């Protein structure tokens, strides 16, 4: 019988349920089939008018139509779908999940259709008062509309804690649900918090979720104004080009990933099927710049090394890297610097393929989505490709699994997430308990 503790004497943390939604579709089976077929989920945006925008493409989840569209609402729906799939697979029972919720979620705020609802009420009040319609609308007018008491539901929708609150209620998670953000590393942080809670012995299980449905005009424009997005809109499927010389930014995308984590002891006790092991987590924050990595790569290098060390592993044991791999000029260059330092000569040989080439950057969800794809890579012993790899970047001599999936022996994998604000997190995962 294997030990239920790792080399450091901590409870081994395993994955017993996974659920996923991306622009490729809902569910692990559909996503994995399309991902390994090199299919892209990036399309021209049809959700809102794109006139005047430099970027007109995204990996939006359009098979769950909402009218009016609301990013927070869709994010919650995506999370529900992913959690449904994860807890069904884990068999832990819907309605009473035996542990806390750690939710990586985009910061919630009023969206334009909310502000317009206040403005319409303000205009109606002005008309009723004889002031005439179409006057100037300012926050004083919005506040007078809000004071009518007719917008209480908007408060409950737009407090940041609402998504976690609703999910906690629906799935019966235990304790105060945690909403968190480490920007583009959020999904990974959610998993890390679950791992730590189980290692502390606070709980035998944790529900770790990342969700994001931010494809709306303002969010797209905010990223666009930071010059972070690809503007190669035609054809949409070719825009995300991680590690290519002609990469020009990431593609915004939507999705959700949910993982049921359990202590190995608890999973074995109930005869659960073990899908993978979260062996180690590592972090290191970057103090260099809000949107750029330290030029020496030290925080990225430290982050990967911390995760590998936390797993009790040596870099030589890592068989595959699921990179952050956004396709921005900066990220991919720095990720190569990091990999070269951590893996030395082996950096050229360890396969590293970016899911974002196909599903785009699912932002707050990315860490959870990509952890699931990494676990599926371990399960199927097959590496999903980096598509759109037509013009290799000679400065990034890595095996990016170009364009076509391939079989490989993968015992242990590293997944990286690097967020704006210098928030870096890496995970080490394996197929089975050592």
């Amino acid at each position, binding site marked *: 019988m294997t030990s239920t503790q790792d080399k450091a*004497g*901590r409870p081994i943390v395993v994955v017993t349920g996974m659920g996923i939604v991306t622009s490729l579709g809902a569910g692990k089976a559909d996503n994995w089939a399309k991902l390994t077929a090199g299919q892209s989920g990036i399309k021209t945006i049809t959700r809102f*008018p*794109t*006139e*005047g925008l430099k970027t007109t493409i995204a990996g939006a989840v359009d098979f769950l139509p909402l009218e009016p569209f609301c990013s927070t609402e869709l994010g919650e729906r995506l999370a529900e779908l992913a959690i449904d799939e994860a807890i069904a697979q884990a068999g832990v029972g819907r309605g009473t999940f035996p542990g806390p919720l750690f939710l990586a*979620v985009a*910061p919630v705020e009023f969206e334009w259709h909310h*502000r*317009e609802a206040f*403005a319409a009420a303000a205009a109606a009040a002005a008309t009723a008062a004889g002031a005439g319609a*179409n*006057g*100037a*609308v*300012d*926050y004083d007018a*919005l*506040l007078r509309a*809000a*004071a009518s*008491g007719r917008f209480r539901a908007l*408060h*409950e929708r737009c407090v*940041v*804690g609402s998504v*976690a*609150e609703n999910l*906690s*209620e629906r799935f019966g998670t235990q*304790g*105060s*649900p*945690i909403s*968190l*953000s*480490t*920007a583009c590393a959020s999904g990974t942080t959610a998993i890390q*918090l679950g791992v*730590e809670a189980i290692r*502390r012995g606070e709980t035998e299980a944790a529900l770790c979720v990342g969700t994001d449905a931010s494809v709306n*005009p*303002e969010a797209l*424009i*905010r990223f*666009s*104004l*930071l010059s972070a997005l690809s503007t190669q809109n035609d054809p949409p499927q070719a825009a995300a080009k991680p590690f290519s010389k002609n990469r020009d930014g990431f593609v915004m995308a939507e999705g959700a990933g949910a993982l049921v984590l359990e202590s190995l002891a608890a999973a074995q006790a109930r005869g659960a099927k073990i899908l993978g092991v979260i062996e180690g987590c590592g*972090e*290191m*924050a*970057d*103090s*260099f*710049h*809000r949107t750029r990595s330290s030029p020496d790569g030290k925080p990225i290098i430290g982050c990967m090394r911390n995760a590998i060390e936390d797993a009790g592993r040596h870099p030589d044991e890592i068989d595959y890297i699921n990179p952050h791999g956004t396709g921005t000029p900066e990220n991919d260059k720095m990720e190569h610097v990091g990999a070269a330092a951590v893996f030395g000569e082996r950096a050229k040989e360890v396969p590293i393929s970016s899911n974002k080439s196909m599903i785009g950057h699912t932002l707050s969800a990315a860490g959870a989505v990509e952890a699931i794809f990494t676990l599926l890579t371990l399960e199927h012993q097959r590496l999903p490709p980096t598509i759109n790899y037509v013009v290799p970047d000679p400065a990034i001599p890595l095996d990016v699994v170009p364009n076509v999936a391939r079989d490989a022996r993968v015992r242990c994998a590293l997944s990286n997430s690097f967020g*704006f*604000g*210098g*928030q870096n997190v890496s995970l080490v995962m394996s197929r089975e308990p050592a």
Partner: protein
Amino acid sequence: MAEAPRHVLITGIGIVSCLGEGPDAHWQQLMHAPRADVSRFAPYVVHLLPAIEFDKQIPKKGDQRQMELWQRIGTYAAGLALDSAQAKGDPALLGRIDLLVAAGGGERDYAVDSAILTGLQTAENPGAFLNERLMSDLRPTLFLGQLSNLLAGNITIVHSVTGSSRTFMGEEAAGVDAVRIAAARIASRQSEIVLVGGAHNGERPDLLLLYESGGYALKEPFAPVFARAERGGGMALASLGAFIMLESPEHAGARGAQALARLSHILSRRTRRHPGDVTAALERMWAELTPSLDSAHCAIVSGATGAEPATAEERAFLAAHAGIPVRATGTHIGHGVEAQFPMNVALATLALQHGELYPPADALGHDVAPGGTLRQAVVTSVGHWRGEGMALVEAVA
């Protein structure tokens, strides 16, 4: 077998509010009657930030320009906490410090929002109009100034705290859970030293809009938190920032850091907020603390917001423990949402250092004088909509 949990010490506090900056200014001002502004956002009551020389903790103007006000407040308060913990200027130490921030976010450009909403009423093609105006009028730096995790990002950049960086969101609960998980990581040896806290800019019409739509924003006249129920209750938003340094005894001892207080227990709860839920949750948490309490030397530092019905439920709990003196800090400093609980842990620490409470001003109705020297402070959180929590902070030595 896991080792026994270890103590969690508070080795630094950094606080900024309408009362001023730093422990001494706060303690002095708490002796005076509470005040709040009722004109700037009339009819709403807001506790405004006093003049702050941000240069003292954020020396580069370029850094300040990249931040919105809530981030400047938080980065400033974090710097004060690092000073208080004597942690500045030691790169090896700063590289070990884990950072856990409770944050909101979402600052707006009010002129841009108003112009767009006005124009949308008559725009022939509203979608194209929105795109055009946002593309030309949004400042690129505003995005970074409003991102929730960028308070932590700015603290890392300005103060070189790089051990790790995490941000919890979700209003009052975020503040409680940030302190809870920071303390749990130290107690279980997952971390040695954590800088935890938050910041809030209460001078924001968009936040007033959010809370007013739920009926939670206090309108004039100003009144203490327990004297608002007859008018339907309400919270007075506050600009404030609070960070505390939590540290293991071993780590603090090795670097000669002085413990200001000990964080002995920290609990959080989720309830559905059915009638009676909040009172019951507070009672259950109190019951968990009871074996550790010494009622002759104990006080309650309440996080009551003034919003109803939550404040009435907390009041029912307090009435059941009427022998314990209570101070609701929201009367003096207002409500800083995510940052309120870290602030109240800091103010509890301050009271323990003084060994006494400041004069009562909350109109609770059953004020009792403290017994002996103050040795314990129970800090409560009852968020305006969600977010129940309770901590026990104790004097050291």
